[in-house]
Each structure stands twice: as C-alpha cells, then as structure tokens.
C-alpha cells in the first residue's frame, strides 16, 4: 500500500486538517474542558497535600 512518491494532495490536505483541528480545539467549549481538568487536578492535589487521602 505504500508509495515512494508523495501525493500532490497530501500537503494541502494535511494543512487544511491542521487548520480545522486548531479551530476545533480553540473553541471555548474545548478550551473549557481542558481548564476543567486543570481545576480538578488542582483540587485533588490540594486535598492530598492538605489532609492526605
């Protein structure tokens, strides 16, 4: 299935996908989900440091 020469469509397709992915992750909802994890990890860490498990 592998081919020696890169396809003409490969570079623009990869770039287009990168752009779309960036748009996907940089939307407020997805950024918020990352922030949520950060907040959650911080809470867990504080709880363990303050009182032990």
């Amino acid at each position, binding site marked *: 299935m592998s*081919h020696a020469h*890169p396809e003409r469509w*490969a570079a623009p397709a990869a770039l287009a*996908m990168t752009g*779309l992915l960036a748009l996907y992750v940089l939307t407020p*909802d997805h950024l918020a989900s*990352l922030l949520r*994890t950060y907040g*959650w990890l911080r809470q867990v860490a504080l709880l363990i440091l303050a009182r032990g498990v």
Partner: protein
Amino acid sequence: MIDRLSAQLLALPTAGFLGTDASTWVRLGWLLALSALIWMVYALWRLGRGDAPLTACVAAAVLSTAHIIATQLVLGWLGLLTPLAIALASVGLAAVTLALGVLPRRASIHAALRKARLRARGVTLPPWAWLIIFLYAAIVLRNVFYGWFLPPYDRDGLAYHLPIMASMVQAHSVAPIPSLSVWVRSYPINGELMQLWTFAPLGLDKLVDLAFLPGVIFGALALYGIARHFEASRAASIAGAAVFAFTPTVFLRQVGSYNDAWLVSLFIMGVYLILKSAPHGTASAVELAIPSGLCAGIVAGTKYSGLALAALLGALLVFRLLEKEPPPAGEVRDAAPRATRLKRVAAGLAVFTILGVFLGAYAYARNWIVEGNPMAPAQIALGGQVIWPGLEMEKILALDSGSPVEGLAWPARIGAAWLDRLASLYDYNFGGSGPLWVFLGVPGLVYWAVISARRRDKWPLLIIVGVLLVFAATPDNWRPRFAVALLLPMAVGCALLLDRLRNWPSVLVRAELVLMIGYVAVATLPPPEVSVEQLREFVARSDDRSRSAARVAQPDEVYTWIERETDARPTTIAYGRRVDIYPLFGADLRNTVVHLHAPDELSWHTALEASPAQLVVTSLGSKEDDWTRTSLEFVEVVRAEPLAVFARR
C-alpha cells in the same frame, strides 16, 4: 499516606484493604483467575490449531465471551443460575477444552509460542506509536480506577441494565421479569449476563461497571489486525486502531452499563476473524462460521441494533465462503466447482444461524411470547402496515424539550454532534465522537472508499458499503454512540492514509494524532458528575457495600434513607412507574425487589397486600403513587421530589 497503606495491608485479614474485605479479595482473585483461565485455554487451543498469535488472542476473546454468555444462559433457562453452578459449568467447559484441544497439541503450541517470542523480539516501533500504547494503558488504568472505586451511576444502568442483572441474580433464572418498566421486561440480556459474570462470585456489584472493559480493548486489537490484514504498516495500524480506541464514546464506555462500544467491538472481532480465516472445504467452512456465528449471536442478543450488525457478519461470511479456493502450491487446477462452494456456503450458514439463534434469539422469543412483539417496545411496521404494535421509534428516541438538537435537520445534527458542539465529550446522548473521528476518521473513510473503488478491491468495498448500510438503517444515527461501527472503516482507512503520506505532511498528521489523543485523555480525566469530595469519600472513606448506587442516585434523600433502613435489615421493596430500580437492591443485592404489574387500583392493592413488600417507592403523581396513598396498609415515610417511600404499618 504510605503509613496508612501499610497499616491497611496489615489489617487485611480482618478489616480489609482499600475498603474491600479479605473474603472479597479472595473472590476477586477467583473471578480474575477463572476469566484468565478460560481465555488462556481458548487462546492456546487456537494457537495449537495454527492461528497467528493475534488471531488466537482475538478468537479467544470471542470464545470466552460466548462461553460466559452461553453457560449462564443455559443455567438461567434451567433455573440454576447460581454462583456455584456458573463456576462449575465454566471450569468443566474449560477443562474439556484443555483435555481435548490443548493437551494433545502441546508440541505445536510450544512451537507456536517460541515462534511468536522470536518474532516479537524483531518488532520495532517508532516512539510515537509507543506513546499511543502508553496513553492507552493510562486510559485503561483510569477506567479501572473509576470502575473499582465508584458505584454504578449511569442513567440507563440504574434504570434497566442493572435491574435486569439483579433480577436474574435473585431469580437464579433468565425467566421474563414482570417489571413495570418496559425496558426491564424487554431489553435483550447478553450485556447484562456479562455484568452478572462479574457480580456472581463476589456477591457485590463492585466490578459490574468493568464488565465491558476487556471486550473493548480486544476490539481495538482486532481493528489493528484488520488494518494489518489490508497491508498497513505496524505503526500506521496502531494509529488506525487509536482512532477507534481513543474516541471518547468508545473508551469512556469501558466503564458503565452502556454496551454500544462493546457491541461494536465484538462486531469488529467477527469481521477480523472472517478476514483471517481461509475456507477450504466444508469442514473449514464450519470452523470459519463458528467464531462469526458466536459474534453474531452475542451482538444480536445485546441490543436491537445488534441485529443489523449480526446480519452484516452473516453477509460477509457468505462472501468469504463463496470465494474461489486457491489451488495448492505447485498445482495447476481450476478452483473448487460451484457446487462445492454452494455446499460450503450451506454448511457455514447453517452453523452461523444455529449459533446466532442460540446466543441471540432468546430475548426476542421471550418478547414475542410475553409482549406479543419480538422487538418490544418498538413498533414494527412494513410499508405502512403495523406488523407488531408498540411504541413508535420517534417516541422511544424522543428528545427532551430544550434539547440542543431540537429543530435541526439531520445534516446539521451530524455536523454539530461530530464536532462535539452539542455536549461535552462525556455525553452519551449527543457527544463523545471526539476530534479523531471527524478529523482523521472521516478523511480515512473517504480515502479508503476512493482507492478501493478505483482498484475494485472487493473486501474493503464490502466492509465500507456494509457498514454504511447499517449506519443508514440505524435510527437517530447522528448520535455518535449509535454510529460507532463507522469507526471500523474510518480507522482502517486512516491507517492506510498514514502509510501513504510522506515527509512533513506525514510528520504533521502523526503529531496531530498524538496531540488529539492527549487532548481527549486530558479532557476526560475527571469522572463526569462526581465531585472531588465525593470521589474522596468513595476512595478513602467507603467500603464495597457503601459504594452503592444509592449514594449517587437522585433524589438522594429517598435512596439514602432506604440504604440506611435496610443496611442491617434487608427488606422487600415494591416500586411504581418512573422509579430508578437498581439503587433499591443495595450493592450486595440484599433487598428483594418485587415487580408488581397492576392495571388498576384494586389489583394494585391486592398485589401489594399479597406481596411480602415492606416498602413501596413511587413517583409522585403516578398512578401507583395515588393508589398507594389510598392503601390502609401503607403510610408515607419519606418524600423528596420526584419520589415518595411508603412503609407497611
């Protein structure tokens, strides 16, 4: 913290460790040992018969799943569904396979294991592929952690999956459950039998949420195998399998009662095993039909949509059996004549149907007899003619008012759901497709479809068209969890696409794949709907009995009251419509839940009085609630919107 852990370890024989007492640890060890033994016996058997190691592993996963469901189904039919009978039947079946299938082939198994070890030493993978494997292991550990410490709490699990399991445990049988909930009465039971397997030896629901975890992992492994079958490189096949494995609606369903990911994993295993076995003669046609027939039976008996996947497996099997047999090496002769091939199809299809019916048809036959509709509660109509009356699909899949997809057309729903614009990655209703699905899966699917159409590659086209037909026939297919089967061609296409890319586009796409995997892993790290404080309570301050669904079910006033009241004095509980039944049982199913089905007030009173129920839980405003209020025997003891509890005077 280390001091506390060592103190807990020392106290293990009496007080337990991590909230699990010594007897439960022993039972857990037994469950894991028995499950591993069954899988290993089947894997060695298949290895001894000449399967490649990956094929043997996947075939063993299918055979073990079928073993678990078949033994419990038969015991359930006989009314002997007890932990002891399950253990004896399983050990007996494994011992027979060991004696007849493994021991006589010791030499070839040793040779196959040696060869596999040597081959494994020569395998090299790029660092990014190792990173994917590492992240997957981390995600599985995360799921095991939550499954281990948190009680079952997903909505459908509490409403009907787990009540079905609990009712089967208490009845020692798979007999019809005369519940007020139509889903408890009619839902197919194979997934619940898997949950029962984890419940029975423990007498606790500690591991019921992890019943589907091994199957979903083997599904990813089979997908890797399918990509390899279509000549993708090892690393690209890992990337392709990752598109499936790291889709949130797939990996999050390693925990819980939602069976969609497990169901599709078994379908993928079936496709893989059909692709990996070459039919030569009638005998091997039967052998080929066995694993695919088992997969078909399991998926058909798990969920209604499994019927379509089972039919697709049957169709793929027929195409495989119709294939022209290549002549033996060095011989020049025509392929098998048509009559031989037809005989092969007939033999294979007969075995496939028998196994499919054995493992998959029970719930539909039960529904036909009890409800008058095999597909109950769904109404089945053909060309406007109602064949089996029931609820219309629009009512079954009705959206709540204010749903984010209300008023959207199908393409808009697909776009919004596949981009996770409707809900969080956790959501089982509207979200969960994640970025890999749409950004790598969809291009992969399109790419594979185009190159296969150009080359007229029969098998890729059969798989793509088959899966798309199933997708088209699935109601509400814009919901990612109903469309998980699409990930099969998406993942394989993605693997082939990655192999095709060269230079910087290849590096870029691989980097994006790893980053997106990292994104979904990080974004779904906290458990949904459980706060840090609650998690702490469950991990550090609870034992296996108090890690119960009653602690997370709503309204908590009602469920925790019942939990407290019945902690030392198990009781019998009746319930009305729209009540989550599972938390009434307790984590160790100490309470007996009676299913009273009464069409009117008089028969409700008669049934209640005749039943041993000491408590009745009703939904405020329901008929059963109104009727119980007029009872002279029962008085309200707790009320919290939307439920009330009545106790016998």
